[in-house]
């Protein structure tokens, strides 16, 4: 420990670099892309990139809340697949019915998670693992193991294709609303503070008289709702309810949250950084596609998995000092 009163520039910069690693990496990747590829900054690429990643961003936001309480939700991918089927069935009535319907279906699974975790005291990892299997099975039963085509006559598919006010697709507007609402709840309401308090120390939060159980129920239902929205995006964007989709989404979401600097032990986290984390992981794919397009390298789709895992590794290494310092304090 150095002299606390003197300002140590090197330590300050290093600390900032660690806690803002995700923003630095995101900016670096964007700069790299802008300099290297002609169409990278084009409207088409930006819009289609955001459109495709909107599902993952929404799921990551829900996951972020769960992880901040020290929990985990492995069911989001299957739940999204389930709600995509629900939304496809509801699509003839239009997006006004299908979107709330999908969200409600997601919330229902979140409620099951909350029940099993809070009242049956099953660890979140196991409880949501079970819901993951159940939602997958439910999606297959509901759809008869087939993709359910949506009604193209209604306004359902316009969600991903038509632009709000002629500028950006509705999906992106919705994601922005969800992100802003989530950010507001986390930073400006007592509910958000309770979420962080639970992650910091659940027993202490109970003793403080905080509404621990109710807050935990909220985060799992929020995560379910986010998965529900993602399922509606999936059905709307691809024109079909897809019971077999969503495999591995939970891990992408966890990766986004972790890349965004949220500690898996809970008690710390940020919505904007989580969104940045999701964008960062998506951008890795985007850049690989561009690089393939230039023909300088030819990386198969399989390489993307390797690169993505490697990326996660690097970010964890960057974060490691922060969290191990925290762990040392705890000890």
């Amino acid at each position, binding site marked *: 420990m150095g002299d606390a009163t003197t300002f140590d520039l090197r330590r300050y910069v290093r600390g900032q670099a660690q806690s803002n690693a995700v923003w630095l990496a995101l900016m670096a990747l964007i700069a790299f892309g802008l300099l290297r590829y002609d169409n990278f900054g084009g409207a088409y690429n930006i819009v289609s990139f955001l459109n495709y990643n909107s599902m993952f961003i929404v799921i990551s936001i829900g996951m972020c809340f769960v992880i901040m309480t020290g929990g*985990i939700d492995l069911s989001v991918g299957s739940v999204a697949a389930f709600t995509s089927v629900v939304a496809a069935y509801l699509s003839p009535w239009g997006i006004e019915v299908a979107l709330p319907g999908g969200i409600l279906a997601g919330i229902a699974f979140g409620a099951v998670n909350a029940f*099993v975790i809070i009242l*049956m*005291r*099953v*660890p979140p*990892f*196991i*409880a949501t*693992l*079970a*819901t*993951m*299997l*159940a939602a*997958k*099975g*439910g*999606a*297959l*039963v509901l759809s008869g*193991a087939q993709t359910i085509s949506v009604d193209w006559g209604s306004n359902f598919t316009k969600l991903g294709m038509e632009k709000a006010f002629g500028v950006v697709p509705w999906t992106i507007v919705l994601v922005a609303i969800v992100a802003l609402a989530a950010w507001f709840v986390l930073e400006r309401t007592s509910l958000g503070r309770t979420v962080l308090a639970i992650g910091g120390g659940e027993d202490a939060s109970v003793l403080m008289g905080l509404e621990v159980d109710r807050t935990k129920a909220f985060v799992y239902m929020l995560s379910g709702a986010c998965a529900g929205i993602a399922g509606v995006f999936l059905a709307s964007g691809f024109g079909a309810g897809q019971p077999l989709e969503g495999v*591995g989404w939970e*891990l992408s979401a*966890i*990766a986004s949250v*972790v890349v965004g600097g949220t500690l*898996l*032990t809970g008690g710390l986290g940020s919505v904007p950084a989580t969104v940045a984390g999701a964008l960062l992981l998506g951008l890795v794919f985007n850049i690989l596609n561009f690089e393939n397009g230039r023909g300088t390298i030819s990386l*198969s*789709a*399989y*390489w*993307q*998995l*390797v*690169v*993505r*895992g*490697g990326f*996660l*590794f690097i970010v*964890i*290494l960057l974060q*490691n000092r922060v*969290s*191990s310092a925290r*762990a040392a304090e*705890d*000890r």
Partner: protein
Amino acid sequence: MSTRLESASPATASPATARALRQLRRHGGLVALLVLVLVNIAITPNFLQLQTLFVNISQVATIAIVAIGMTLVIATGGIDLSVGAVMALAGALAPLIFLSPFGVAYPALGLVAAFTLPLLAAMACGLFNGFMVSVLRVQPIIATLILFISGRGIAQVLTNGNLQTFSNPSFSYLGTGRILGLPFQGWLALALAGLVYWLVTRTLFGRYLLAIGGNERAARLSGVPVRRVKFGAYVICAGLAGIAGLIVVAINSASDAGRNGNLMELDAIAAAVVGGALLQGGRAPIFGAVLGAVIIQLVKYTLLANGVEDEVALIAKAFIIVVAVYLQAGRRE
């Protein structure tokens, strides 16, 4: 992750019912197995045929082998999500080796290499996981998530995503051989379970393993080499996953890096938990994991053989996992 040791609370129910409940919990797995077998005898056509036994043994062996390793990792309070990816990697390597020019020129050497190199690669994955968890102190879910994502990617890059088919009777023995009329991999699973059981109950490593899971801090303060033991657990788990990956490839006489070991981490975790492993660590019921694997396989088989769709089987599996853990939680309190 620090687990506090809570003092055992006095039994609240009357002694007799408490004892009955405890007995049920302790032997819940066996009871479930018995019920499953009886139900099957009653309703499943041709259940008491040897063919049924063979099918189930060859299916259960891979789950059991991976679940044994998973139990060790869970005993330290960790988790290993990468086992399925490691299976794919090991399974992809083996045919690459014995189909290579070297393997074709020297079949015997090629065969030995096709068994050893994939296992070494798998254990290298375990080393990586162990390094992340014990040296860098990354949470196990995240640490093993890295290889979960990229391990299968590496396997697919190696094989270019292609299905590799082969005909190599000596290698396929691993998946199709018989000893005393029973599938070879069933014996292998039992032998491995026996070995790991010995490791857990009779060696210093085993004592340390349980000590770390019980209370890591106390274990460290009393001089347990926490890092080395955790390394050991992850390396053994990955090595066992590698063996399972080879078995799957040998059964099919084909290696599909995209499917080999897919969702195996879930089956293995479920088997370990049904078998009595506590997610907080401190318990390593090895034969319990084998029992858990048998139960999970038998449930799958029961539903399939009675014409219930795969999808519903998933829901049943979910239900089993929750009930098993719920009973476990009851035992702890």
